[in-house]
């Protein structure tokens, strides 16, 4: 299964994504960490995420860019966190953002389950500098392509999962995802 998790900052995406992984096979759980650790704030965030993952059987792979080269064993359950950092690192740290989507597609084929975490940065109405606008636009494109690959797309709203699409519930069209269904628990039916 391929799952894309989006939502605002600090809304519980990581915690929810990890809960989903807990319902999945214990073997070969790989956590792909994308954050460049360069200051105290990043260190604290990484420490908090590591604590969340303690005892959940994750092997952590640091992969700030070039996902294709990450040594992820075939058949793994992969939690990649997140597309926001990966895209920023590829764009602003001498990488190439064009290699992200092909790498995701290959990873999806190689993995048993693939859970991708991203972020919703697009509704503040601010026009930033050209390089930031280019970054936001590229991230939005990658998010849309990841959503297209995914069997399930979920927006986490303050810890509550709202299903935006579920290809396994027969209807991949939008009608089923009326807002009245939002907040339904998907924990029980994962994976």
């Amino acid at each position, binding site marked *: 299964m391929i799952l*894309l998790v*989006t939502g605002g900052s600090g809304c519980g995406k990581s915690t929810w994504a990890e809960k989903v992984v807990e319902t999945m096979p214990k073997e070969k759980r790989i956590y792909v960490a994308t954050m460049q650790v360069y200051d105290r704030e990043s260190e604290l965030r990484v420490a908090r995420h590591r604590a969340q993952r303690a005892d959940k059987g994750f092997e952590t792979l640091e992969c700030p860019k070039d996902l294709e080269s990450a040594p992820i064993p075939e058949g793994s359950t992969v939690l990649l966190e997140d597309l926001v950092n990966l895209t920023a690192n590829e764009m602003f740290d001498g990488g190439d953002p064009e290699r992200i989507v092909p790498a995701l597609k290959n990873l999806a084929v190689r993995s048993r389950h693939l859970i991708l975490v*991203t972020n*919703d*940065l*697009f*509704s*503040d*109405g*601010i026009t930033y500098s050209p390089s930031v606008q280019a970054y*936001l*636009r590229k991230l*939005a*494109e990658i*998010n*849309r392509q*990841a*959503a*297209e690959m995914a069997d399930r*797309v979920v*927006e986490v709203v303050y810890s509550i999962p709202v299903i*935006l*699409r579920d290809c396994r519930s027969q209807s991949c069209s*939008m*009608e089923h*995802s*009326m*807002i009245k269904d939002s907040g339904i628990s998907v924990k029980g039916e994962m994976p």
Partner: protein
Amino acid sequence: MKLYIGGAWQGQDVLARQENPEGPFFEDFHETVRRAVLSEGQDPRVFAEDFCAAHPDAIVIANEVGAGVVPMAAEDRTFREAVGRALCVIAGKAETVTRCICGIGVRIK
């Protein structure tokens, strides 16, 4: 009238065209509101009501712009507020309102 909204680049334009191949489309409507209010000094609600009366079959496509920190510049604050007021009127008149995220539409009205 139908309204398609979403954050920047969330695919609301593509979905609007898929679902309404005929149009007529009014794209980047938040920028239309910006011009009407900031350049021409119109009231956003009156502008939106006049628009609805003139274009009852419009397919309106816009960005959601109100979910950030209050902008420092007065012009940005006016813009953000005006888009909110105008789109409330449009949403009120629209038969359907569809919100896009990651290219996926959710019908909220």
